[in-house]
C-alpha cells in the first residue's frame, strides 16, 4: 500500500494523551508509522480535526432479529432509499438499514469499527453472513449466554471451570467476541409467558437466580481473560424503579475486576436507570447510577441516548418487548431461540410531548453529564432502540453545547422538564472528551489494542472532520460540530481513503474480530463429554453442524487469550 502523510491536522488521540496538537500523521501498509518517504501521497488536513476512526461498542446492525425487523418494516425503508453509485451498492435506511447502507453510513460519520452486541449462538451463522456483507467497517458480535441451558445447569452445579470451558468453546464455535447477558433467566421464564424482575428471583425449572448467573459469568470472564468486560442488559428493562436492579447488578461484578480493567459493562442504562413506581411517576435514577460509576472502578456504562423520532425496538429481551408492545400498540415480533435466548421487536415513536419519552431522553443525557470520567461512559443510542446511529452527531452536539440542550429542553413535556436534573447541568464536553467516548474509550474497553488511537502500530483507521478547534467554539457553534461529524471530510480505513466530503469513494472489506480463549485439555474434555451427552436432547441441529468454521468469515481476526483453567 502506498505511503500517506496527513499533514497539519489538529490531532485528538486520547489514548496517547494528544489533545488537539498540530501534527502530522504518517501511514504505511495500513498502519500508523513514525515517518514516510518523500514520495508519499499527501493529504492536507490543515484547519481540520484528526481523530482515530470511530469505534461503536453497541449497535444492533446484523443478525436474525435485525433482519426480522427489516422484513417486518418495509415502511421504515421506503422513505429512505440509497441510490447505487459508482462506488456504492444501493440500499435502504432508516432505522434498520440494509447491510451495504449500514457500512457506508458509518463510514460517512468517520466510524471504522462496530460491534453487534447480541446474537443468539444458534443463529450466529446468520449474523456473520450479514457482518461479512457490511462494507468498510471492522466488526464483531457478542453471543448471548444469560439464558443458556448449559450455562444455567453449570451455575446450579457450581462447576465454574466447566462453565469457563463451555464459554470458551462457544466463543470459538460462534466466532463471538465477548460474553453478553440479556435479562438473565428472564427469557427462559418467557418460555412460559413469564419474566423475572429481581436478581434473586428463581428461573423456572432451573432453580438458579439471575444473581448467580451474572456472578458466574463475571468469574468466567476473568478466568478466560477475555478482552472485553461482561456486557450486560439487566433484568427489569423499562420498568419504573429499575435503577435499583441496575445498581444491584453492578454490585455482582465487584469481585471480578482485573488489573486496570472493569469486570462489567452495563449497556443502554437509560432503559434501566429509572426511579419511580409507575409510568406517571418515572424519575431519573441517573444521579445514583452516575455516583456509583464515579466511585467504583469495576464497571462502565453507556446511556443508549434517546432521539425524538420513529425507532425500532429490538432486543433479545422478549418479555420486555411484549410489555412495551402492550403500551405502544403497534407491530410486535417475537422469536424465542431453543435452549438459549429470544428476541423481540416493536416499532415505536418517541415524542417530546410524551412524559416518559422526555424523561428517557433526559436520563440518558444526565448519565453522560454526571459520570465524570469519559473513560467510563460511551456514546451509543443502542441503535436502533434509542435512535438510529446516524443520530450520533446530534448527540455530540447536545454534549458539547448546553445551549443546544436547553433549546430542546424548552420543547419537551413540561412535567419532565420540572422533574429532570438536566436543566440545571451546564457541563459541556470538549472535543477531546468526545474523541474519548466515541473511539478511545470504546476501543480500550473492547481490548482492541490496534484501534481507537493513532500511536505507532495502530491500524490506520482515521477520521478527519472539518472542524478547526483553534477557531471553533463547539458550545456556540454546535451546528457546525454536528454537520462535521455527520459528513467526515475524510475517512480512512487501513490507510485507504474510503470517504471524501461525506461521500463513499471506495468500498473495502473489513475484518471480523473474535476471541479464542485457550483452556486446558482436561477441563475441555470433561465439558465436551457433558455437551455431547445432552446436545441432541437440547437442540434440533447436530453438534457437528453447530460450530461456524473460520473460513466462513470473509476476513477473520482471532484474538487468543490464555485462560486460567
Amino acid at each position: 500500500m502506498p505511503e500517506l502523510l496527513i499533514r497539519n491536522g489538529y490531532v485528538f488521540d486520547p489514548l496517547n494523551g494528544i489533545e488537539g496538537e498540530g501534527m502530522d500523521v504518517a501511514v504505511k501498509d495500513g498502519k500508523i508509522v513514525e515517518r514516510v518517504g518523500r514520495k508519499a501521497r499527501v493529504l492536507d488536513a490543515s484547519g481540520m480535526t484528526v481523530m482515530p476512526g470511530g469505534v461503536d461498542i453497541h449497535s444492533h446492525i446484523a443478525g436474525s432479529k435485525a433482519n426480522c425487523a427489516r422484513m417486518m418494516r418495509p415502511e421504515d425503508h421506503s422513505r429512505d432509499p440509497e441510490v447505487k453509485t459508482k462506488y456504492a451498492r444501493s440500499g435502504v435506511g432508516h432505522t434498520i438499514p440494509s447491510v451495504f447502507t449500514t457500512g457506508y453510513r458509518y463510514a460517512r460519520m468517520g466510524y471504522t469499527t462496530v460491534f453487534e452486541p447480541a446474537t443468539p449462538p444458534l443463529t450466529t451463522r446468520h449474523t456473520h453472513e450479514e457482518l461479512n456483507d457490511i462494507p468498510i467497517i471492522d466488526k464483531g458480535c457478542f453471543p448471548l449466554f444469560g439464558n443458556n441451558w448449559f450455562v444455567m445447569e453449570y451455575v446450579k452445579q457450581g462447576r465454574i471451570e466447566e462453565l469457563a470451558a463451555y464459554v470458551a468453546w462457544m466463543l470459538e464455535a460462534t466466532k463471538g467476541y465477548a460474553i453478553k447477558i440479556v435479562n438473565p433467566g428472564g427469557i427462559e421464564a418467557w418460555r412460559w409467558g413469564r419474566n423475572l424482575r429481581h436478581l434473586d428471583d428463581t428461573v423456572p425449572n432451573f432453580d438458579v437466580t439471575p444473581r448467580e448467573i451474572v456472578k458466574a459469568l463475571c468469574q468466567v470472564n476473568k478466568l478466560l481473560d477475555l478482552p472485553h468486560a461482561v456486557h450486560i442488559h439487566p433484568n427489569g428493562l423499562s420498568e419504573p424503579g429499575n435503577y435499583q436492579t441496575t445498581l444491584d447488578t453492578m454490585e455482582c461484578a465487584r469481585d471480578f475486576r482485573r488489573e486496570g480493567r472493569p469486570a462489567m459493562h452495563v449497556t443502554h442504562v437509560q432503559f434501566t436507570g429509572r426511579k419511580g413506581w409507575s409510568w406517571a411517576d418515572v424519575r431519573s435514577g441517573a444521579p445514583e447510577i452516575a455516583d456509583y460509576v464515579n466511585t467504583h472502578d469495576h464497571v462502565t456504562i453507556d446511556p443508549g441516548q434517546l432521539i425524538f423520532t420513529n425507532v425500532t425496538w429490538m432486543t433479545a429481551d422478549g418479555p420486555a418487548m411484549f410489555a412495551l408492545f402492550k403500551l405502544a400498540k403497534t407491530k410486535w415480533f417475537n422469536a424465542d431461540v431453543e435452549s438459549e435466548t429470544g428476541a423481540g421487536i416493536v416499532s415505536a415513536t418517541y415524542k417530546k410531548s410524551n412524559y416518559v419519552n422526555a424523561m428517557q431522553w433526559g436520563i440518558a443525557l444526565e448519565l453522560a453529564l454526571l459520570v465524570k470520567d469519559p473513560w467510563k461512559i460511551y456514546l451509543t443510542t443502542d441503535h436502533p432502540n434509542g435512535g438510529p446511529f446516524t443520530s450520533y452527531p446530534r448527540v455530540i452536539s447536545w454534549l458539547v453545547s448546553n445551549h443546544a440542550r436547553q433549546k430542546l429542553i424548552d420543547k419537551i413535556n413540561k412535567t419532565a422538564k420540572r422533574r429532570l436534573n438536566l436543566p440545571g447541568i451546564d457541563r459541556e464536553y470538549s472535543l477531546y472528551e468526545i474523541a474519548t467516548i466515541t473511539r478511545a474509550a470504546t476501543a480500550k474497553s473492547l481490548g482492541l489494542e490496534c484501534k481507537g488511537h493513532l500511536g505507532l502500530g495502530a491500524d490506520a483507521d482515521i477520521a478527519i472532520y472539518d472542524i478547526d478547534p483553534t477557531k471553533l467554539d463547539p458550545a456556540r457553534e454546535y451546528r457546525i460540530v454536528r454537520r462535521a461529524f455527520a459528513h467526515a471530510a475524510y475517512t480512512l480505513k487501513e490507510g485507504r481513503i474510503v470517504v471524501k466530503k461525506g461521500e463513499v469513494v471506495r468500498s473495502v472489506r473489513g475484518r471480523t474480530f473474535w476471541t479464542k480463549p485457550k483452556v486446558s485439555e482436561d477441563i475441555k474434555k470433561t465439558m465436551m463429554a457433558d455437551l455431547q451427552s445432552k446436545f441432541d436432547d437440547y437442540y434440533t441441529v447436530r453438534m457437528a453442524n453447530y460450530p461456524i468454521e473460520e473460513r466462513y468469515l470473509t476476513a477473520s481476526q482471532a484474538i487468543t487469550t490464555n485462560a486460567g483453567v
Partner: protein
Amino acid sequence: MPKATLQDVLCTFCASGCDNLEITYDGRIIDSARNGCAISVSRFTTSDKSRLLKPLVRKAGKLRPTTFARAVDRAARILNNAKYPLLYGWSQTSCEAISKGIELTELVGGLIDNTTTSCHGPTILGVQDAGEATSTLGEIRHSADLVIYWGCNPVHSHPRHTNRFTVFSKGRFRKTRKDRKLIVVDVRQTDTAKLADRFIQVQPNGDYELLTALRTAINGEQIEQETIAGVPVETVEEIADMMMECEFGALFFGLGLTMTAGKHRNTEAALALVKDLNFVTKFVIVPMRGWFNVAGANEVSTWQTGYPYAVDLSQGYPRFNPGDTSAIDAITRGEVDAALVVASDPVSHFPREAVKHLLKIPIIVLEPKRTPTSEAAEVVIPSAILGVEAAGTIYRIDGVALEAKKVIDPPIGVRPDVETLDTIIRRVKKLGARR
C-alpha cells in the same frame, strides 16, 4: 474406488433442515442415504437422473450444446440488452448464489423475485401488518402441549416434522405423545388429519371467517352465527378453549391460507390470532416453508435490499410493491422482456396466461435437471445440486442457518450456481452494463 460415508449431512429438499443424514458413496455414485425420510433417499440416490450435463444455447429453434463461455456470453448479452429483466427462482440454491443474483440484478437494472411470490408471500405481507410471535423449532419440541396444523399436510410435505418437532418428538418438558394434543384444520381429511385429536373440516375459502371467529371467542366476545365456514359454533368455542388453556401452543400453517381467497388477509388473521393468544397464554406461529432455501432467499434479499422478495432495482435503488413488482404481475403486464431462472420451473407452475408471456421472451436457465422451463430456454447452464454436489448456506423453516455439504463431485463441467452467476457478472461488467 472404496466406499466412503459422510455423517451429519443436511438434506436439501424441504425446509425442515434435517442434518443427521448418513450418506454412503462410491466416487460419484451415492449408494445410500440413511436417517432421513423417503424423499431424502430419492434426493440423494437419484441425483444423477435426468441431468442437464452441457451448457445449451438455442440455434435455429433448437437447443444445442455449447461451451460454458459461450453460454455465459449469450446470457450476459440477453440481460444487458433487456429493459426490464426478471431474475427469478432462488429457493433451491445457496445464499451465496442468491447474493450474486442480487448483485447481478442491480447491475442490469432488473427485478429480482423468488418463489415466495407464489407461496408464502402472503405470510410475509401478513407479518408486515400484524407482526409475528414465533420461535425456533426446538422450543416447540421442548414445550408445546398443543399443536395445530392449519392448511398444511406435513406428513406429505415435511415427512419428519411430527417426529422431530411436534407430536412424536421428545422435548425437555413434553416427553410423549400423551403430553401433547393435535388439532388439524383442513378442507379434507389428509393423512396429517388422521393423526389429530381433533380434525376441523373447514369450507374452502372459509379460513378467514374461522380464524376471525376464534379471535372473537378468545377476546371474550360472543359469536353470533350458528356455523362458521361449515364449522358449528360449539366446536369453534371448544377449540378456542383448548387454545387458551394450553401452556404452550404452536400453530403451523401452509398454503391452505396463502393460496386461497383472502391470501395475506388469511395469514394476517392467523398471525393476529396468535398475538391475541399471547395475552392469555404462550403461543407461537410458524409458517411451513416449502423449499429448502426459500427462507434463505427472503433473508439474503432482506439484508441486502431491505425487502424479502419482489424487489425492483431498475431505478437504481430497491423498491418493493407486490402486485406491481411481483413476478407474475410484471410478466402478465408484458413488462418483463427477459428472464434468468435459477432453481425453479415457472413454465410448469405459473398460471397459464403468465406462461404465455414468459414463452415469448428469452429465458436463461440455471438448473440441474431437465424441466419444461429449461426446454423453453434460450440458454441453459447446468447446475450442481446444492447439498449433494455443492456446498452452501441455507435457512430452514424457522430461520436457523445451516451449511449444506458437498458429498460428491458434480458431473464434469457442471458448476455450482454461485460460480456460474459470478462468471455472468464479470461478463456483464466487461460488456459494459447498462446501469
